[in-house]
Every structure is written in C-alpha cells, then in structure tokens.
C-alpha cells in the first residue's frame, strides 16, 4: 500500500465530487463503481449512487446501447442526489466515452482507456471514419483529457502472472479503479479484501484474486508516478450524527423492511413473485432469508404470484408480491379480489419507464394513477411511496402495518432510481421499531354470540382475520359481493351500496393512522413545492439551491398517496401556488386538483431518468420569482 505523504501538499480539497465510471456492459463498471462507493463510505463521506445499465445483458461489444455506467456523488456535506454534472469520468471504451461525455462539466477530468480507441471500436460506436475524439482539439480544450493505455499497462503489469489473456484482460477495471483511488486519495484495503473474499474464498480462485489486486495496485502506482494528472483531490469526511452506518440501496432496504415487519408482527412472509426488472432485487434478497422464515415462491406468472400471496394471507401468513408496472397491470383483477376479501396484502411495485415494456432499466413515477385507479369498479386501496433508498426500509414496514391494521391490500410504489441507487443509512436499533400487533379470533371469543366474518371493528372498520385451522370459525370468503356481517353472498342492492361505501371508508380511515404532512420551510406563503416518492433527493437539493439564491419556498413530500395525510388540504390551502414536480405528465397533480379543487403547476419531465437538480432549480425559480 503506497503512502500518501509524498504528494500530501499537492492535493486539492473539495466539498463534493461526482464521478462516473462507464464502459461496456461486460467491463464490470457496476462492480468498479460499487467498490469506489464502499471505500468512500467506509472513509466517512456522504454519498449517493446511480447505476445506469442497459436492458440487454450483453449487448454487442463496443456499441453505444451496450454502455453501462455507475455514477457516485461523494461529499463532506449532506447530499441527496447522485449529482447532475459529472466532475470526473472514467471511460473504458469509446462507446462509454461517447454516451457519457455530454454530462461532464466543462473543465472536468476525463480519463480514457486509449487502447480501446481503435479504428474498429470507433466505427462500432458510430464515429465517422478517420475521426478520433481523443485527437479533437475542441474536446481537448473543453475537458482535462487524460489518455491512459489501460489495456496495455494491465497486460504488462500481469505479464509474469502466468494467467491467460482473458483473465488478464478482465482486470482492466481494477487498473482503472486503482487510478481513481489514487486520484481521490482512497485506501485500497477494502477492495483488496473484497477481491480475496470474492475470488479466493468464495470461488476458490486465489490466482484471480491476486492478479486483480496487482492490477489495482498497478493503477494506483501509475497515478502516482506518471504525472499525467493535474492534481489529487480530497473529499473530507462528512459530519454525520454518531451511530452505525451502512450503505443501502432501495431494493435492499425494501427487503430489510419486509423482514423486519415480519419479525415485528411475529408472522412469516410468503413472497410470491415473477422476476421483473427492476423489482427482482427484492426477490433475490428475500430468497436468501429463509432463516427468518421468509418463504419465497417463484410463480409461473404475475397473476399467479399475487393470487398465491392472497392465498397465503387467507391462511394466516403475510402475503407479499413484488413487480413493476407491467406486472401491476396484470395483477389488477386479483387486487380487486384481495380488497373484496378484505385480507392483508402488500404489492411492491418498483416503477419503471413505460408503457408496455418501455425502458425496463430506467426510472419513472408514472404508475401512480394505475395504483390508484387501475382496477375495475370502486376498488380503493392504500398506497405508500418511499422517498429515498433508505426510506424504503420504513415504508416497507408501514406497508405491512397498514395492510394488517386495515385488512386491505397496500401498494408500495418504489421506483428504479431509488431501488438501485444507494446512500449511507444510519442503522436503526431493532428494539426501537414498534411491534405490529395481529390478533386472530378464536371460537371462545364468540361464546356469547355468532362469529361474523364481515363484522367490522368500529374504529378501523376492519373485519376479523380468522384463519383456517381455527375450530368453530369455518367460513367462506369470495369474490361475489358479501353481505355485511355474515359475509354470505348477497345480491341485495342496498347491501352492495353499503359495502362499496364501507370499503372506501375503511381505506379513507387509514388517514387517522398515518403521520401528518410536514412542511419544510414556512408553513404558509407564496409557493409550496409538493413532491412524492423517489424524487425527494432531487427536489430537496433543488429547494436548498433556490433558497440559497435568496428565494422563499416551502416544501412538502408525500409518502402516503392514498389516503393523503389528513392535513393535506390545510397545507395546500396555506400557499398561493402549489408546484408539483413528478416524473410523469401530472398524475399527482390530477389527484390533487380533483380532490381539493385547487390549481397546481406541474414540472413534468419523463426521460427515464431522475430529475436534474439544475432543471428543477430553474423551473422552481421561475415560479417563485414571477
């Protein structure tokens, strides 16, 4: 491990930096970026990440549509987004360079593997014959371009390793990571340990671990000795509340939230799902947690998955199904069944860009109206939406709590951005998380009367959850309209009207069981920005910038979309203008306008990407200064 002292006084201290690693989808960019993030997290930076990968697993090598990227924003301050503008980019091939260059700030560092900028590779990604961007004066003037023959240097540094060309070639990403570690004064220790664990211990390939470590060190030494970099950079530790921290992505936090809810409810979870991007990560995570009594079932299709979860809830477990937008559409009828049966059910929907297959690996917030109305007839259910990767933990617990507290399906709207993005998370103490109380009636409870499967709790309006195997409480539930109380099939007109209203009222009543909408900033004034779900980080950052330039603006963020918090109308009524940024064409605006009869100003951008902070700043500033 090289020491830093030689160049100690040459380094520039930065508050924050945005780095993007990019290359071919086979170049290991997600791993490289992940390692850089882990190391920075352990060092003590605040961070946010944004992995961006193609839907194709291995698109033809060297093409622009096969480019995989990983962006990480490191800071000594509190940050909420992976950043708009890239300060430094490491491009492993011309395709990655071409796709990502426009996001790099003028003057930003661009490190390229120049060995890959061959005639053939340049033409593969659509550069005109005879043109090499690395020789373009305009590009050289605009960016701090650093050309490194990474392929050759990796090969040379491993020449005596005795390993084949294929294995050696695969170490290029570690060479690049070594350069990045040198440039940002990071320790190699964590990645070395990781490589030993991954290759030597788990896969029994110690020699592969060895060459990767050597490539990593070679990259680091290259940075130190080659003198091609203008400076080294240091991003000091962030000031964080004391405690235990970890890095967490939204999908990981969803998994941990569901497991925690199950433990707090003393109930097993049956998670039935059909693999779909970007929700599969939740499935993968839960499948490894059998020791916590989590039963995962890979169903034959989306409909089977939700129906199996419903069956599990009927039998007394907590049924959970997970999907993305297209799958949610397929589950529509069964969601109606669950709310007719009045059984607890959690439907995890990690939203992606669509419609139809759309952009499976890109993010969007456009399933809100589907979640709200995407079923036939009057079929309200509870909708919650986590606001950040770590908030997925809290909201997954909330989804389970509300499902059992109100005996109703709950849709949990995550999105591809927070599902795959990661941030530091102060790990909560399990003991501080409240218990979820569940009672199943017993025959003795009805010694003086009759068990009525559709009798309602006067406060919550939920029905009792009597489960098969309980003597004396045998009963039938079904998709036909239920008679109030008995649950028998009823075609009575007034009963139907009553039950339709009861089901709606029950869901509306959940407003009494959720937190009030908090306003950040003045509780009344000219402009309120109202967000929901995974845009919290971008909007928060934008609001801070708008305020820093002297404007007054308040901000509220909804994590509960149905019902809305009970003070929502009051909050909205305290402002002259309500601005709603969302990654759709105005779905929350539609709900707010129709429910509260107020006008809203939408900021709607639907590019399959998270909001750019600078766009939000511009658009919010327009409203506050008009």
């Amino acid at each position, binding site marked *: 491990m090289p020491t830093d002292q030689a160049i100690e006084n040459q380094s520039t201290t930065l508050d924050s930096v945005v780095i993007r690693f990019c290359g071919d989808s086979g170049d290991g960019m997600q791993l490289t970026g992940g390692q850089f993030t*882990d190391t920075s*997290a*352990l060092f*003590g930076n605040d961070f946010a990440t944004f992995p961006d990968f193609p839907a194709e697993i291995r698109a033809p090598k060297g093409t622009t549509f096969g480019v995989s990227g990983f962006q990480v924003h490191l800071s000594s301050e509190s940050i909420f987004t992976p950043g708009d503008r890239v300060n430094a980019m490491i491009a492993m091939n011309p395709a990655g360079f071409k796709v990502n260059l426009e996001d790099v700030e003028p003057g930003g560092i661009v490190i390229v593997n120049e060995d890959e900028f061959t005639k053939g590779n340049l033409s593969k990604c659509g550069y005109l014959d005879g043109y090499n961007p690395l020789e373009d004066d305009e590009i050289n003037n605009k960016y701090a371009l650093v050309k490194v023959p990474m392929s050759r240097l990796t090969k040379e540094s491993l020449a005596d390793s005795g390993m084949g060309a294929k294995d050696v070639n695969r170490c290029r990403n570690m060479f690049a990571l070594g350069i990045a570690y040198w440039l940002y004064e990071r320790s190699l220790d964590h990645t070395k340990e990781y490589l030993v664990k991954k290759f030597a211990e788990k896969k029994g390939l110690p020699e592969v671990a060895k060459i990767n470590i050597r490539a990593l060190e070679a990259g680091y030494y290259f940075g130190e000795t080659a003198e091609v970099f203008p400076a080294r950079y240091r991003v000091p530790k962030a000031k*964080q509340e*004391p*405690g*235990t*921290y*970890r890095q*967490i992505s939204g999908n990981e936090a969803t998994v941990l939230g569901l*497991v925690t809810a199950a*433990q707090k409810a003393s109930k097993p979870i*049956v998670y*039935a799902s059909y693999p779909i991007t970007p929700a599969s990560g939740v499935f993968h995570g839960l499948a490894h*947690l*059998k*020791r*916590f009594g989590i*039963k995962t*079932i890979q*169903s*034959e299709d989306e*409909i*089977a998955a939700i*129906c*199996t*979860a*419903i*069956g*599990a809830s*009927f*039998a*007394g*477990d907590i*049924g959970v199904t997970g999907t993305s937008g297209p799958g949610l559409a397929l589950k529509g*009828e*069964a969601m*109606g*069944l669950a709310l007719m*049966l009045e059984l607890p059910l959690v439907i995890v929907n990690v939203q992606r860009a669509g419609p139809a297959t759309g952009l499976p690996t890109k993010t969007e917030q456009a399933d809100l109206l589907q979640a709200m109305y995407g079923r036939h007839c009057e079929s309200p259910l509870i909708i919650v939406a986590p606001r950040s990767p770590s908030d997925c933990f809290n909201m997954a617990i909330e989804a389970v709590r509300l499902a059992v507290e109100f005996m109703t399906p709950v849709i949990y709207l995550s999105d591809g951005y927070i599902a795959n993005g990661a941030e530091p998370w102060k*790990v*909560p*103490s*399990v003991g501080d998380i409240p218990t979820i109380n569940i009672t199943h009636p017993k025959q003795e409870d009805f010694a003086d009367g009759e068990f009525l499967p559709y009798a309602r709790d006067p406060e919550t309006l939920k029905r009792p959850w009597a*489960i*098969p*195997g309980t*003597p*004396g*409480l*045998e*009963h*039938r*539930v*079904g*998709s*036909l309209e239920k008679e109030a109380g008995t649950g*028998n*099939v009823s075609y009575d007109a007034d009963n139907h009207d009553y039950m339709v209203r009861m089901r709606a009222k029950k869901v509306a009543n959940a407003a009494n069981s959720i937190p009030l909408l908090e306003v950040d900033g003045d509780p009344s004034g000219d402009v309120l920005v109202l967000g929901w779900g995974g845009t919290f980080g971008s909007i928060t950052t934008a609001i801070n910038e708008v305020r820093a330039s002297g404007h007054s603006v308040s901000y509220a963020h909804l994590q509960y979309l149905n019902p809305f918090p009970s003070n929502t109308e009051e909050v909205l009524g305290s402002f002259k203008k309500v601005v709603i940024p969302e990654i759709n064409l105005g779905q929350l605006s539609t709900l707010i306008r129709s429910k509260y009869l107020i006008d809203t100003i939408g900021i709607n951008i639907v590019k399959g990407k998270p909001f750019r902070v600078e766009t939000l700043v511009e658009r919010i500033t327009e409203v506050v200064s008009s």
Partner: protein
Amino acid sequence: MSATESKISELPIYTAKDFTTDQDVRWCPGCGDYAVLSAVRKALPGIARKREDYVFVSGIGCAARFPYYMETYGMHSIHGRALAVATGVKCANPGLEVCVVSGDGDLFSIGGNHTIHTMRRNVDITILLLNNKIYGLTKGQYSPTSETGKISPTSPAGSIDYPINPIAIAVATGCTFIARSLDVDMKGMDAIIKRAMAHRGTSFVEVYQDCNIFNHKAWFYASQKDTMPENTIKVEHGKPLIFGTDRDKGIRFNNGRPEVVLIGQNGITEADLIVHDETDMFLASMYAQMAHPEFPEPMGILHADPTKPTYNDLLYQQLEEAKQKSGQPDLQALITGNESWEVQ
C-alpha cells in the same frame, strides 16, 4: 407438517351434515354438480382430518360455487386462479387439507397456466375438475374440452377448436395422482376422493359431469347403465384391463399399441391382457390417449406416485435447513450488514 393429521378415533364423529352450510345450493336442478357435492360431503367424514383443517378453493364458473356449500374454510376466488390461491394457502400452512373444485374453463382455458405449473411442482392439493365440456355460467359457449364442431352461441357454424385432453396434460406435467370418474358413479367417486385427499402431492381427478341445461347427454356414451360397461373401463391396481357388459373384453398390447380384444377368442386369455400398475407413468400416458369410440375410456386411479416430494415439503425443508445452519436469526445483525462503519 403432520401436526394436524390425526387418528380418526381422536376426531369428532362427523357426518355429511357437518360439512353442509346453511346456504341454498343454487345449481340448476339435475346438475351433475349435486352428485359431486354429495360425494365430497360423504367422503370427508371418512378421512382423518378435522373439519377446520379443510380449505376449499375455487375460481369462477358453476362448479366454483362449491366452497359456499361446504362447512369448512373456503374461498371463491377469481376466474382461473384457484390453484394459485391454493398454492399460497398450502405454503402458508401445510397442515391444511387444500382442495380445489373447478371446471374445464377455469382449469384448462383462463387458468391453464396455473394447472400446468401446480401439477409440475407437485403442490399437495387435490383438484376436482368438473368437466361438463361447456361454459355453463356464461350460458352455453363451447369450452376447451368441447368437441370440434360444437354448435354454441359463439360457434354457430360449429367450433373449429380441437379439444384439450386433461388427462394427457396431467401426464405431461408429471402429475403424481391422476384419476377419472363419472358424476353418476357415487361409489367410485367416494373411493377416488378419499385416495386423492390422502395422496401427498397434486391429485387430479377428472369428473365427467353432466350440464343438463347447455350440454345435456354429453357424457351419455359413458355414463348410462347400458353404455358404461361397454364404453368405459375401470382400472384397478394389479388387475387386468377387462370391461364389457359380460366382462368379456380386454385390452392387450399388440406391437406396442393397446388393442381391444375378446377374451376367449383366438386363444386370448386374461393372461394376455395389460395389468394395471398405477405407479407406471407409461400406462397413464396410454390411458390418456384411450378415447371413445376406439377404446373404452379408463376410469379409476390411473396413476399414483407417492414417492415424489411435494413442493410444500421441499419449501419447508429448505426453511428448516436454513434455520439449522444459521441458528437463531439475528435481525439487528442482518440490517446492520457486513460492511457497516461507526461515526463517533
């Protein structure tokens, strides 16, 4: 898993009445479903199970009203999805006896996918297919088991669909218990239901059921006093395949193919006939292809393989193994993860 399986002597003494709800049965008078309901209600007291441990699940269709009439736990779900729901019930609590009552539309049209995959996984569920070869509840359209040429409201010129073969599907999926019965054969049905419920794995029972409103007499070639002996053959484990009013006909292999023969003619004796072996999937495969009028249609338990582990057993086995391996699971350690850091 067997915690709730009890010795019959320890159970309350049930009669069919104990399994009868106060709900009026609303099938058309004369519907074959009545016979199946009655057979099930009568069979359950003879099975070593507590009443509260039964769960009847159905989809949509005439047959799907079944759970409302059984004084057990039950769910009338949505069209085609009964098996997916039943899988969830069984996986949540494998101690329950889960039975799906369904029709040909539910199981082989809208819910066909679930039928295939439930059978393939060998989830411990009993499936009763009430096959009337017609859509009754929607008023008489042809179904996936209707014969080609069927005249119906949606096929006025005759259906151009070829029918599906439920037994062949069951064989193709590796279903571990395959049986067939006639709605009028109360005795046969009783024996099959008891065996099907006792079987650990997916039990599939096809019942030829008469829809006397929209497809009356569809099964008369097999279900009547004079037609049953000639056009069906009751298979019994270990016994030769013999049928006919005078029990003078049998099935033998001729050059690898089944053939109807007359016992006593051309020197053919019982010893030349195929002997039914319910464990043999090759025979089940053959039964699936034996159709009227070339062959008598096989009735009884066509296949039973109790050796294949069930999906729910394997699921719980993996849970157990994971628990054994890890000891007491530590939630705090899980959420903290392996790469946490301390901020002072």
